[in-house]
């Protein structure tokens, strides 16, 4: 089951196991599939591995997409 909510890395050990906080509950997650993971990064986790580091700029793009879809002039009635 895909979990949509990003978690925040709060600690990383030398074997690239991280503690990731999901709004209060934390999980052990491997961050070895990421490029230069760091404490404070938001990550998307699947089956115990972080597979993507969320770039806040990319996250903003969803808002832009929403706006462009919704502000499009609606068809003439």
């Amino acid at each position, binding site marked *: *089951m*895909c979990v949509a909510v990003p978690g925040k890395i709060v600690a990383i050990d030398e074997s690239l196991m991280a503690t990731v906080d999901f709004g209060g509950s934390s999980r052990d997650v491997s961050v070895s599939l990421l*490029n230069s993971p760091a404490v404070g990064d*938001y990550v998307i986790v699947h*089956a115990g591995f972080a*597979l993507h580091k969320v770039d806040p700029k990319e*996250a903003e793009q969803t808002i832009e997409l929403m706006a462009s879809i*919704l502000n499009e002039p609606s068809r003439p009635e």
Partner: protein
Amino acid sequence: MSHPDRSDPGLLNKLLDKIRRYDGPPLTIMEVCGTHTVSIARMGLSALLPKGVSLLSGPGCPVCVTPVDIFDEAIYLAREKDVIIATYGDAMRVPGSETSLLEVKAGGGEVYPVYSTTDALDLSQKNKNREVVFIGLGFETTSPTVAHALITAKNLGVNNFSVLSAHKVLLPAMEALLLDPEVKIDAFLCPGHASMVLGWRCYEELAEKYGTPSVVAGFEPHEILLAINMLLAQAKEGAVRVENAYPKAVSEEGNTSALNLLERVFKKVDSKWRGLGMLPGSGYELSDEFADYDARRRFLSGVKFDSSEPAGCSCADVLRGVIAPAQCPLFAKRCTPKDPVGACMVSSEGACGAHYRYREV
């Protein structure tokens, strides 16, 4: 991190409104991912779509597409080869030809549900005088985690861990559905997390070849509605593009470290799917470098299952979007999540399981 307020009913209504005002050509959209199926069923979205627009559930639920053979192989390993089986919880409940891994466990077999391949590898380290076999299922979202476990095992010199790989390659299945004369798909709602690994550009070849608009979607209701709006906008324009409605998680090129691991640890082989049959280049087997970690080569040489679907189960048609779950004669009667007949009812993200939970009664 700022994001549109998920619970904002105003936003959902606006997105839904826009969908309902669609007046372009008819459009059948297949949602490939099982988690999308669940989200769509929970929203009751199908009933809210305008005339001419429909959603089909596709083959995106990992345990659902895994053929019965694999479960028979795993059951054989647990019973005859005295190995410890580690697998995802859902896989334990899928019926094999005669029994399930869960029943094997109840009868004293050593079958353990694990959350990740890291847990499976730990299990092998805690049981050094036993063989531990992990059943690897799923698409490019889970296969890199198996690849990582195998590389770790090799680096550490672990010799009691192996993988029974039933991993699937996503794109050949999507192509097979586009070629299937019984299935009519105009557009794809592409899976969020497989795309996180594969990158959104991976759909371009299919889109061009078959003229199929494709949009990668996230999992929140507003993210799915956004992606559907983008598909409808394309249909109205008569455009065929691959677009990314999930930029938070999916990049153009995907997770290159994960893709590199896949390249090293696996090789693509022809593979049998529940519902879709044998598809060329659609499965991942361990590469020769990892032959020692291949449970099939180690424990199953000369053993071959060619099992058929449970009698009466229409999973094959459900997985291709040819029928809706409720059209299966066994749905919610002989087949329920408590006592599933087919794999599509076992998993909460299987089309039958999702439709059962959120059906109108």
